[in-house]
C-alpha cells in the first residue's frame, strides 16, 4: 500500500513541484549563461546590462522561492490532505497511519532534496568556467582513486573509515530533512486534536517543540561535553585523531537527531491515530 500512496502523493505534489523545478532550472541556466557570456554582449549593447541584472536577480529569487515552495508544499499537503476535508478519504483508506505519514515524508524529502540538488549542481556549474575546461581537464582537477588510496594509507585511514564517514554524512543530512518535516507534521497533528483554534494550537505546538528541543539539545550537549571533555578537547595530533573526533561529533549529532525524529514521529502518529478530529 505504501507504493500506491507514494504514487498518488507524487502525482498530487508533482503538479506544483515539477513546474517549480522546471522554472528554477530555466532561471538558473539562464543566469549562468548571462554570467558566462554577458560581458561580451554588454560591451556591444549597454542596455542589455539591465536585462541581465534582472535575470540574475530572478534566478536568486527563484532559488529562494523554490526552497520556500518545497516547504510550503510539504506543509500544505499534510494539512490539507490529512487534516482537512480530504482527510475523510485518506483516513478511511485501508492503510495504516504509518503508511500515510511515511508517504508524505518520503515524497517531501525527495522534493526538498531535488530542489537543493538542482540549486547545488547549477550553482557549481556556474562557478566552474566550462568554456575553458574540457571534461578531461575537469577530471584531472580531482585526485585519482589511486592517489586517494595512497594518501589514506599514509594517514592510516582504512577504506571502512571513509565509507562510514560518507554514510554518516548522508544520514545526518537525511535526518535533518526528516526532522524539518516531522517538526511541522507533529505540530499540525497535535494542534488539530483541538476542536477550536486548530491552526493557532499548531503554531503553539511548533514553537513549543522548538523550545523543548533547544532546551534538550543544550542540556545534552553540556552534559556530554562535561563527561567527554578530555576526549573532546584532546589535541588532535594526527589526522586520524581529527577524523575520530569528527566522527564522534557526527555520531552524537546523528544520535540526537534520531531521538528527536523518533519523538516527533510518535507525536505525529499518536495525534493522527488517537486524536484525529476532522472538522
Amino acid at each position, binding site marked *: *500500500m505504501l507504493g*500506491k500512496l507514494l*504514487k*498518488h502523493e507524487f*502525482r*498530487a505534489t508533482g*503538479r506544483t513541484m515539477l513546474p517549480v523545478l522546471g522554472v528554477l532550472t530555466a532561471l538558473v541556466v539562464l543566469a549562468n549563461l548571462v554570467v558566462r557570456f554577458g560581458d561580451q554582449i554588454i560591451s556591444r549593447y549597454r542596455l542589455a546590462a539591465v536585462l541581465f541584472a534582472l535575470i540574475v536577480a530572478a534566478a536568486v529569487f527563484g532559488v529562494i522561492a523554490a526552497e520556500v515552495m518545497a516547504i510550503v508544499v510539504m506543509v500544505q499537503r499534510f494539512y490539507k*490532505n490529512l487534516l482537512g*476535508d*480530504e*482527510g*475523510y*478519504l485518506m*483516513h*478511511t*483508506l*485501508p*492503510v*495504516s497511519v504509518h503508511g500515510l505519514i511515511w508517504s508524505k515524508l518520503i515524497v517531501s524529502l525527495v522534493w526538498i532534496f531535488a530542489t537543493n540538488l538542482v540549486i547545488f549542481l547549477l550553482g557549481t556549474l556556474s562557478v566552474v568556467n566550462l568554456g575553458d575546461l574540457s571534461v578531461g581537464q575537469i577530471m584531472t582537477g580531482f585526485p585519482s582513486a589511486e592517489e586517494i588510496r595512497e594518501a589514506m594509507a599514509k594517514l592510516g585511514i582504512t577504506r571502512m573509515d571513509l565509507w562510514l564517514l560518507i554514510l554518516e554524512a548522508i544520514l545526518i543530512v537525511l535526518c535533518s530533512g526528516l526532522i524539518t518535516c516531522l517538526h511541522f507534521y507533529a505540530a499540525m497533528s497535535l494542534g488539530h486534536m483541538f*476542536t477550536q483554534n486548530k491552526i493557532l494550537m499548531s503554531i503553539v505546538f511548533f514553537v513549543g517543540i522548538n523550545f523543548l528541543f533547544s532546551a534538550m539539545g543544550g542540556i545534552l550537549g553540556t552534559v556530554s561535553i562535561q563527561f567527554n571533555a578530555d576526549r573532546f578537547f584532546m589535541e588532535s595530533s594526527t589526522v586520524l585523531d581529527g577524523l575520530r573526533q569528527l566522527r564522534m561529533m557526527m555520531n552524537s549529532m546523528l544520535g540526537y537527531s534520531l531521538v528527536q525524529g523518533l519523538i516527533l514521529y510518535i507525536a505525529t502518529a499518536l495525534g493522527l*491515530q*488517537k*486524536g*484525529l*478530529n*476532522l472538522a
Partner: protein
Amino acid sequence: MAILECKGLSKRFGSVQALDNVNLTIEPGRVVGLLGPNGSGKTTLLKLCNGLLTPSAGEILIAGAKPGPETKAVVSYLPDKPYLADWMNVGQLMDFFADFYGDFDRERALDMLAHLNINEQQSIKQMSKGTREKVQLILVMSRKAGLYLLDEPIGGVDPATRDYILDTIIRNYNPAAAVVISTHLIADVEQVLDEVVFIRNGQIMLQSPVDAIREDKGMSVDQYFREVFKC
C-alpha cells in the same frame, strides 16, 4: 454475525457528551435509517465507525473487528461534506479508488456516470455542487462493501437527485451488506428503509423495523418521529 456492533459506546468532546452509552447491532442485508435532529450524534457515530474518532469508552466492532485498516477495506463511507481533492478528474478518482479498494467495481461506476452524463475527464473543480455530490455517491456505491455508511446523502439535494440517490441505493442492494443512512429528512427515505434507529442527545431511543412502527402506531415513521421529538 452482525456487520456493525456498538457496545457501551461513548464519545466526549471536552465537556460535551456527543454519544452516551450507545448499544447498537446492525445485521447484514438491512437498510437502516439513523434518524435524529441536527447535533444528535449521528455524524459522530459514523465517524467513530470509520476510525475517524477514537471512543472515550466502549467499543465498536465491524464484522467482529475494531476499526482499523482491515475494517476500512470493507466499509464504504460517504461523509456529509465534499471530501474529494478538487484537482482530480473523475478518471483519476476511479483509479484512486481502484488502487486502494479491492472491492471497487469500475464497470458499475462507469455505468452510473454514463447514466448521469458525467465525463471521465471532468475535474471536480469544474462541477456544480450537486454533480460533486453525485460523483461522491457513485464512487462510494460502486464498492462492493460489507457496510455502507452514508452521512446525510440526501441533505440539500434537489428532488430528482434525491430520487436518483435512493434508486442507486436500492439498485445496489446486496443481501450480504448493510446500509446505514443518517438523515433528518425521514419522509424522503422512509420507503427504502428496513429499520430505523432514533437518536437524541447522543442516546439511542429506539431501534425498530419501519413496518412495525406503522403497524403499532398507525402512522408513518416520519409522523412518529415528529411526535417523539416534539419540542
